[in-house]
């Protein structure tokens, strides 16, 4: 028994050390070089913040038979909590982390060495440098104000965010609880960071300068008023989409959700459309990043997945990118033409978040929201 254990430990040590040695040169390999190694590993676990991982799974397994991609749809907030707990426990469940919530990811996961960056060699020259570091951004995602196009064929019923705090929209604004989903907390934080713009928009809408009414700044005042106006909190973006988008509603609410969820309009019977013109901005646009676990159990397959999610030589990025090549998601690769049905990125009025600025304020805004619930 003892001998057996010793052999096992020895074998594991050898395996681990070869894996460690191999890791260095794995970074250089393209998909052809990774494939045989990945097939040997046979399986790969992906934590993904979007349910579209289901489609990636099917496409990946078709492209690379013999590798079982296990995709888990886990919200970014929960991924962070889980990855931290797993790291503390010394367990590595995930090989690939596909996540938003970059302000927290950078400080809690990257700086603590729980995850590691990886840029597939063949995209290195096709993604702008700002999206390659500190982590590789696959695309830019959004949380913006959306309305029901079916009920409002002439355009958005809202032109200024401050309208949402008025009687007309009482109980008719939907969003996910910012204490459950980090990207919504980022949205709230960005509103606080943009207090000057919020103050100016207030003046435009109400015709008078903003009184803070006890709030620290215009952004906080907006959040306080929004919650006081019977804001409806739900558990997931799909709940928001159904609430706002379902066709045939006489008086649908508006809500903050992902612009790209418009892609499901036809399938789900929704009429989601972005209120791009709203003052001062319809919401936020933020990177969705790809990373490796610090010590992935399937290092080659993990890299192959990230490669698959980034590229292909076809015009639209191929099957790995296809689920994300939709109106409302902005792919970071420069060689892929923007989606024809979406507002072009430079005309899209959402605020770009600066993760480093958001991070320190986030907890404070979270506490503010806690007092409002």
């Amino acid at each position: 028994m003892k001998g057996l254990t010793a052999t096992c430990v020895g074998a594991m040590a050898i395996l681990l050390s070869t894996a460690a040695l191999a890791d260095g040169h794995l970074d250089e390999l393209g998909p052809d070089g990774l494939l045989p190694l990945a097939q040997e590993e046979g399986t790969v676990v992906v934590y993904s913040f979007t349910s579209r991982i289901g489609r990636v799974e099917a496409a990946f397994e078709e492209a690379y038979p013999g590798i079982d991609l296990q995709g888990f749809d886990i919200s970014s907030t929960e991924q962070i909590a889980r990855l931290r707990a797993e790291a503390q426990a010394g367990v590595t469940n995930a090989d690939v982390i596909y996540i938003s919530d970059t302000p927290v990811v950078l400080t809690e996961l990257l700086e603590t060495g729980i995850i590691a960056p990886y840029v597939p060699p063949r995209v290195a020259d096709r993604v702008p440098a700002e999206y390659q570091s500190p982590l590789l951004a696959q695309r830019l995602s959004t949380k913006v104000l959306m309305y029901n196009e079916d009920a409002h064929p002439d355009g958005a019923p809202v032109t200024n965010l401050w309208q949402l705090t008025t009687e007309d929209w009482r109980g008719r604004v939907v969003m996910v609880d910012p204490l459950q989903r980090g990207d919504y907390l980022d949205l709230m934080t960005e509103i606080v960071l943009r207090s000057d713009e919020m103050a100016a928009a207030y003046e435009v809408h109400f015709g008078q300068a903003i009184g803070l009414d006890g709030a620290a700044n215009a952004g906080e005042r907006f959040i306080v008023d929004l919650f006081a106006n019977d804001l409806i909190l739900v558990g997931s973006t799909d709940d928001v989409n159904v609430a706002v988008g379902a066709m045939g509603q006489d008086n649908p609410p508006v809500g903050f959700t992902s612009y790209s969820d418009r892609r499901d309009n036809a399938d789900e019977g929704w009429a989601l459309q972005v209120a791009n013109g709203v003052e001062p901005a319809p919401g936020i646009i933020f990177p969705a990043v790809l990373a490796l676990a610090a010590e992935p159990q399937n290092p080659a397959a993990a890299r192959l997945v990230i490669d698959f999610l980034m590229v292909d030589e076809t015009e639209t990025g191929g099957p790995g990118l296809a689920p994300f090549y939709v109106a409302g998601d902005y792919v970071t690769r420069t060689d892929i033409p923007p989606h024809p049905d979406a507002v072009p990125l430079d005309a899209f009025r959402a605020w770009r978040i600066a993760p480093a600025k958001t991070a320190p304020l986030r907890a404070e805004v979270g506490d503010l929201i806690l007092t409002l619930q």
Partner: protein
Amino acid sequence: MADTAVSRQGRRVFFRQGTVLKVAVLVILIALIVLPLLRTVLFTLHPDTIQAWADVLSGRLSTNLFYKPLGNTLLIGVVVATGCVLLGGFLAWLVVMTDVPFRKTIGVMATLPFMIPSFAAALAWGALFRNDRVGGQVGWLQGMGLDIPDWLAWGMVPTLIVLTLHYFSLAFTIIAAALATVNSDLVEAAQIAGAKGRRILMGIILPVTTPALVAAGSLCFAGAVSNFATPALLGLPVRMQTLSTRLFGMIEVGQVGRGYVIGILLVLISAAFLWAGNRIVSGRRSYATITGKGGRAKRFDLRGARWPLFAIAMVILLASTVVPVAVLTASSLAPSSANLFSDWTLHYWIGQSNPSFAQGIPGIAYNQDIVRALTITLGLGLAVAFTGMFVGLLASYTTARYRAGWMSAAITQISFLPLLVPGIAFGAAYIAYLGAPIGPFPALYGTFALLVIAATAYLLPFSVQTGRAVIQQVGGELEESARITGAGFARRLAAITVPLAIRGLAAGGILIFVKIVRDLSLVVLLFTPTMPVLSVVAYRYASEGFAQFANAITVVILFISIAATLIASRLQTKSQPWLQN
């Protein structure tokens, strides 16, 4: 230990008092129950996290973080406990004391709601009463053109109704058992003296059954305050938080310190109430009284009220058993919950992945995640049934055979401790306890072992209780004679106690199996994506808007639970004396 090895005589003395056994059991219980709870408390006292106490108890966050959820929690506890005692007491009285028609049917049906997971009832409520507050899909009644107000669709009122309809069967079981033991002489004497039904009820039956009423009320209270699924599913859209949903939310967003503090406070609150209940009941801890009492008083003649009372009972029972099951089944087939009974499709059960349908999620029979979760859940149920009954038997054997001494008292007390701890707080404690490596032992986070260990510990009050009932049925004399002839402890247990008690043990194991298979609150935090269990998968589908999949999975859980429950109740009809004539 050295002494025992040296002298044979010394060793005999040692064993006669059962000291070794007591120490072993005590060590197991401390490792399973005391240490995780202690670990949680210590964590919150760490300099980095001690601030969490102030955040929760005072300061600007405390109102929303603690006091408002506390108010909701207490309201739920008090109303649900009262409602359960009234409903359960009423049904128990009907079944045990009166000549109401179909008494046996009522008796069996009244035990079923507790076996239906409370999140299933909450989902069923949504399928019926959901209104357009959140927009999108509405429930069946709203779909029929009724205008369901917010207070009936979301928040406190539905939570109270759903929980009462869930926990009343617990109260029924306790009260019925107590009523069945009411001394028939008392009642007959009163009848001879010419006392009428009401007088007998108020003058004899109520006073005699007070301990059971209090026990039932406090157990329902403890269950209701720690329930997670129902307030989570029905409360969020109107921002209703209870301590258990707050605890879950805090841990989910990584504010672990605050979460643990809320968990500790939740434990203290339910402990305080159970302690108060126990004080009144003074030592009575039995869920089911097994007695062989003979003569039963003449049943109350309900006369003209027979059928009306039967109708009332059936309304309650149908609402708490048949309706949720029917609604869940229908809504796992109907693409739109507004039209529950039309356009049925089996897609959610056996459909292949189709990108244009439910975001390409295949029916549950073809969904690998769900099949995996089913396997793990069943495995977990079986494993916990075995480990639970093993530890439970060991603990109850020890306390039953070696009653004296502080260690036996400690074993009894500790084994009931988890009853005070809400499942979700227990899960949190176990993450803190075994989530990180302890000395040479590896971390168990995300492993099957962690689920088994935590569930075993969590259900110990039930396994010890069952174990005790079983042990007491097996007379001590048989064992005595075996010991005199020189049989060792393991031999006696294997050759005498276990074979004689096997039916009772199997029934107890099945009940534990059911409890863990339908449990959500304990596993919701222990869950990891690579170690999924059915109830959490269903909860996640429900909270992500895929109600049909959630309902289909829930129907599977229901089917397993009810089948197992019926088997168990066949095995232990003895414990339900009120069903016998």
